[in-house]
């Protein structure tokens, strides 16, 4: 039957059409998703009809971060205890950046990794200028941000509309955020504007990845504690130059060599010995970060070269929080020379009470180094050896011993 020929043709054509039309877009290649250095200028010119500038990190802070910030008002002030009138000191500030006009860019390589849990919704980028490190913290509301912006990845951020500020004196790229956490310890002292986390979708929209990550391009400054304290003030001098020096040193990627854990912690400005209790019940247990009962402050554990001391700062939420300090076990802490070596990490200076600084209440324990992990968990930043030359193998606290 002639007319059925058409029908047969239609029937045969249908599966062919199906096969031809139902495929997904092709898979993306590296070149598709990472911006190449060479094409950067072209892209940024197109994005910024009024021109653009890529600031070095220090230049960026010098240009946009002011002493008092430009955001808070009398009716809606910064958090209460961040200001001290004696030296007109602001520990918490926010400076918003212009939304319009020419493009304000910064770039740097990610030095942090949040896998082990010591960094949470925060990262640090590093830029090498004339062989010297410049660093900046970035506060971003992105869980597991290290899965997207990985260690060694160079990123370029368009900062227009964002803010730069100081959180407990630590400079960071941020947005203004009003703290109204009524469940916090001393909540009424913490209420007010503060640098807050950049919304994840906003951050992803303004951030480009330049090339693929390369951890070998990260610069580590290897120092003894004496060398470190020769460069930075052990006790801050609350004048403009002194504060600037501290702020620019914050975020630096360092290897502190020739140190060991003393088994001590910072007990409100004095050092005290860790105990051997269960880390669920004692905040002073001899592990990296026992419980804070969910207050969440970083636990400090002392490293020393025999002369100087520095805090090694760790989160109770980190994966290695309940691992014994090198040289520590169920029975206590054995000090040097059993385990000594280096602690790598991000250098920080944290002070959220302006009055302490103004009143000279500092004990010199405001500086800390935050490792990104320990051997076997994240980046192996704590490396110790004993007299026999054996490497330190992290050992976990065992509840059965208690």
């Amino acid at each position, binding site marked *: 039957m002639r007319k059925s020929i058409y*029908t047969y043709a239609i029937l045969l054509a249908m599966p062919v059409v199906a096969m031809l039309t139902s495929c997904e877009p092709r898979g993306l290649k590296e070149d598709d998703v990472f911006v190449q250095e060479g094409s950067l200028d072209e892209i940024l010119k197109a994005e910024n009809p009024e021109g653009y500038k890529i600031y070095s990190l220090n230049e960026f802070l010098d240009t946009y971060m002011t002493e008092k910030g430009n955001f808070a008002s009398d009716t809606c002030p910064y958090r209460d205890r961040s200001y001290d009138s004696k030296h007109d000191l602001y520990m918490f500030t926010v400076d918003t950046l212009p939304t319009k006009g020419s493009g304000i860019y910064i770039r740097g390589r990610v030095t942090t990794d949040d896998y082990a849990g010591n960094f949470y919704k925060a990262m640090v980028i590093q830029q090498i200028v004339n062989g010297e490190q410049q660093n900046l913290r970035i506060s971003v509301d992105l869980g597991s941000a290290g899965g997207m912006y990985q260690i060694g990845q160079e990123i370029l951020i368009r900062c227009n509309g964002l803010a730069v500020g100081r959180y407990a004196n630590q400079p960071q790229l941020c947005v203004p955020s009003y703290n109204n956490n009524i469940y916090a310890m001393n909540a009424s002292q913490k209420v007010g504007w503060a640098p807050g986390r950049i919304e*994840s979708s906003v951050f992803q929209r303004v951030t480009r990845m330049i090339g693929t990550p390369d951890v070998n391009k990260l610069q580590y400054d290897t120092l003894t504690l004496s060398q470190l304290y020769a460069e930075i003030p052990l006790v801050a001098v609350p004048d403009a130059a002194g504060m600037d020096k501290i702020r620019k040193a914050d975020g630096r990627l360092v290897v502190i060599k020739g140190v060991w854990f003393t088994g001590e912690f910072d007990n409100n400005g004095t050092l005290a010995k860790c105990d051997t209790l269960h880390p*669920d019940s004692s905040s002073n247990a001899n592990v990296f970060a026992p419980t804070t009962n969910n207050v969440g402050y970083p636990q400090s554990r002392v490293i020393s070269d025999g002369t100087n001391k520095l805090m090694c700062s760790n989160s109770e939420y980190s994966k290695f929080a309940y691992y014994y300090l090198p040289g520590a076990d169920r029975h206590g802490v054995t000090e040097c020379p059993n385990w000594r070596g280096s602690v790598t990490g991000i250098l920080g200076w944290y002070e959220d009470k302006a009055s302490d600084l103004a009143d000279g209440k500092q004990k010199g324990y405001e500086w800390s180094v935050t490792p990104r992990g320990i051997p076997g968990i994240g980046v192996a930043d704590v490396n110790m050896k004993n007299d026999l030359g054996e490497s330190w193998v992290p050992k976990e606290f065992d509840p059965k011993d208690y």
Partner: protein
Amino acid sequence: MFVLTLSVAMMAQTSLKGRVVADNTGTPVVGAKVTLANQDISTTTNATGEFTLLYLEAMDEEVLVEADGFIAALELINLQADRTNVMNDVLLQPDIVAQAQDEILLNLTEEEMTDDEGRSQSQASSSSASTDVFNSNTSFAWSTARYRNRGYQSNVENYYIEGLNFSSQERGQFNYSAMGGLNDASRYKEVLNPMEATNFTFGGIGQSTNYLMGASRYAQGWKVGAAGTNRNYKARVNATYSSGVMPSGWAVTAQLAYRFSPYVDNKGIIGEGIKYYSLGYFLTAEKIWDNKRLKLITFGAPTERGQNAAVTQEVYDLTGSNNYNPYWGYQDGKVRNSRIVKSYDPTVIATFEYKIDEQQWLKVAAGYHYSWYSNSALNFYNAPDPRPDYYRNLPSFMWDGQIANPNNVNSADLLFEADGKTHYPWGLFIGEDMNGKSLGSGFIGNDGNLVGPSVNKEQYNNLVDLWKNRDNNTTQINWDNIYAANYANNINNPDGAARYILERRHNDIQEANASFNYVNTKYNHLKMTLGVEGKYSQGIHYKTIDDLLGGNQWIDIDAFADRDIKELASNSGFTQEDIANVRKNEIADDYDNVVKANGRRFGYDYRINMANAKAWFQNEWTFNEVDLYYALAFEYNSMQRTTNMLNGRAWYLTKIADEKTYNNSWIYYGKDAYKTIKAAEAAGKLRAGTTYVGEAHYFLDPAFKFGAIYKINGRNRLKLNALAETRAPYARDAYISQRVHDAVVKNIYTHDNAKSLVDFYAASEKIVSADLTYEFNYPIVRGRITGFFTQSWNGTELNGYYDDEARTFVNQAMTGIDKRYMGVEAAASVKMGTYFTLTGVASVGDYRYTSDAIAVQSAENGMPMTQDMTTKALVFETTDKVLLKGLKLSTGPQVNASLKLSFFHPKMWFADITVSYHDWNYLSVAPSRRMQGLFTGTRLDGTAVNGWFGDDNANAIETSDGMVLLQPTINEDGSVNYNNAVLDANGVPVLKYPYNIMTMQESLAATNPLNRFLIDASVGKLIYLPNRQSVSINLSVTNLGNNTHFKTGGYQQARLPRAVRQGEKDYQNSVITANAWKYPSKYYYAWGVNFFLTVTYKF
């Protein structure tokens, strides 16, 4: 007009013979219902379209002829006494409107399947029974509103194909995608109202549908068609060939149907981000010889289609469209949807019918069906959540912490009240800080909503703008970033898990079924039917990798367990190293948990084996004034889980149980598997791919129904139906965490632990139901009115959700759920002159929970649920009451009414317009939000809840002796509910039902009553061509008024907003915060105006 009849004086009785054929083609119409209106006697036509009615009274009679796909015909006849009256052939006109509507309905039902396992959030009923005025005028007209017959869930409806049960044994639902686009395969069906006597199964409280696919039903010839639509797919072409019954006795029908849509990236239109490809085939052959009949049927429809998701009202408002779809993004400049369903349901059926003699016939049928059903989804490990509509990515997240404490609500001067926008119920921003300092003025955001002064205005508006402008990187999946994360990871961590993968979740079903039916009419007035059914199903569940998205490999570990491992170790008294296995989805000594592209199954790989047997017996008595029937059924069900993977969480839970020397520590494996695993573990010989067989569970369920028809006269009758039955829980609700372990909810028994047969009945839902119908049938007007009542007790339901108090994924097993369904259905169809018919239908119901439920919560990975405040002991399982009593069921609108005006011109013009009104439609409640402990501070098991609605300083309602009962809560509209507390006889606080609870159940009905109306219209034309050829054209327009405010369904998110109270230990630190709408409800909306245009050419 009287039709001339040829009277043959052969017998001394009055009878009527005739034949029903399709107009123009002259093809016999099989299965048409022929009714004599005055005598209230009916029969159906046989394979050659013929019918015979015996033992009639001589009189003037109206012969009503109804058949699927045809317009009903009414003929007048003068029946002469004591002879066989022979009618002229009854010519039926095809109802092209109904045919098109059936097709739309079938597709709608398929597209509605939204979740992983093809379960719909709000599936429409797809059956229409053309012979019932109510059903034929509601199934399509009310489908947009997701009306559900009598408020039942779809799993109480029985779906059969040629007498074989095709409802899923795991979930009880029918898989429409098996017949995707095959409008001819699904054309003929018998649909029985709830509880009525049926001849293919026992039936139940829901409708019973039996699809009839015998080839002899199809008119001889070719049919080719094309359709265009703006729904999820855009076009369809199809072709059907039917041989008709050939001289050899064989009849063959074949259909191919192809539906397609390329990816759509026009934002805001229906089907945004969706592609659709489906090729359906249907082949049926029938041989008729002597008094025997053999049917062979096969069909299937390989389909690939994109999905969309329900989102929160905020997202709908920001994007300005009900069609926003968060599942897609641009890849290489082209649309890519992360959720692609692939389904294919090859089915084969064979039936044999044997007419033993004029009074006995039997039918045996056997079928086999394999259902491949899978959908893809993004999974991620140590990487940011890629969903664009994740709550943290939305502007409203900036409000978190800035919402006022509801208990300060009386101090109105401290607050900024919302501007009356009802769909932003979160409303109350803080106006002063906790030190009492005023924060100044709020501002109106770019989305027109008032925002509090402590929200960062610029950031807020910036984000709103990105959403409003549909910025690709903000509102869609960012495939570039996903690939970049994986490539970066390949460099930094080449042996590690990819950060993102596209996984494919398979939920296959393999089933074989058989049935035997025997009918005997030997005895006067009595029809006896005996049926036996058997079915064996396997639900097959596993995951594979669809696309590594540039990553090197995937490591098969569970992200939740991995994250919680420190706490899991601490809680159990082990080290993290001791329990490193807990995170593995498969533990085997010879397996490294590395999965490559196109590699092995991962995540989970288990089967649920289900056997079902049912025997039923039915007697139907027919007398002059009264018909009676009663039927008895007995059903057996069993289910047994087998797994090919020893899951790390099952291993962990068993390890803990062993450690504590529980005597039932085997429950997570099953007894035999426990021994096998323990031995293999000890020998270091746990092998990948070993099948571990879990416990078998048994259920026995009786059922009884009866009914009576009282024929007042030929035109008026009363019908009564009643039923009592028990129903075993579906596997979906029986296993607490079937992907992980073998444990089942309470009251489900194995051979070993059942003490008597009664135990096999303990877990079943008990149901009684009855309905009473008055039916009338006049030449001008016909219709019915029915009152129905159903009560069920002891239902079981399982939920899984992320619990912010336990901070992990929790399974919640609810038992003891009682429900009541009562209401009235009414329909009347009035002929208005030659061309017009006016039909009114209405259904007003009240479908609600009549009890609270008992819920047991346990963490999927074995985390503690809470901690005893006094002893500090960890509590791994909490039991609480879920305050459901009085709440409405969320099974579609409970008030429905429509008025339809139809036009039919004998020159074959068709048109109709329907206006429908729907109301009393309620949001599905999340049980986690209705736990008694949230209102009283104490769970049923006596454990304390950390943080209720409100905070520590709330003005709690106290009894005279200082016992805190309830604290104020905020209603959805922002007003305060003080939850008037009363004490029951035992002194336990209870809530007044239904008002307090009811005021907190959200209505889905649009605020403006005008937006509760929907208008549909269609117009069609059938053109007859020479040589029995014809062309039909039909245009159906749904939601003609473009009502974009019509919510069709939705659900409350189970998560509750909580905050950590600093300085408190562990489980005592979590409190509910004032931002009660941090995780707002998600909704589905009806599509705006949409059309379906079909053209069919028959030759």
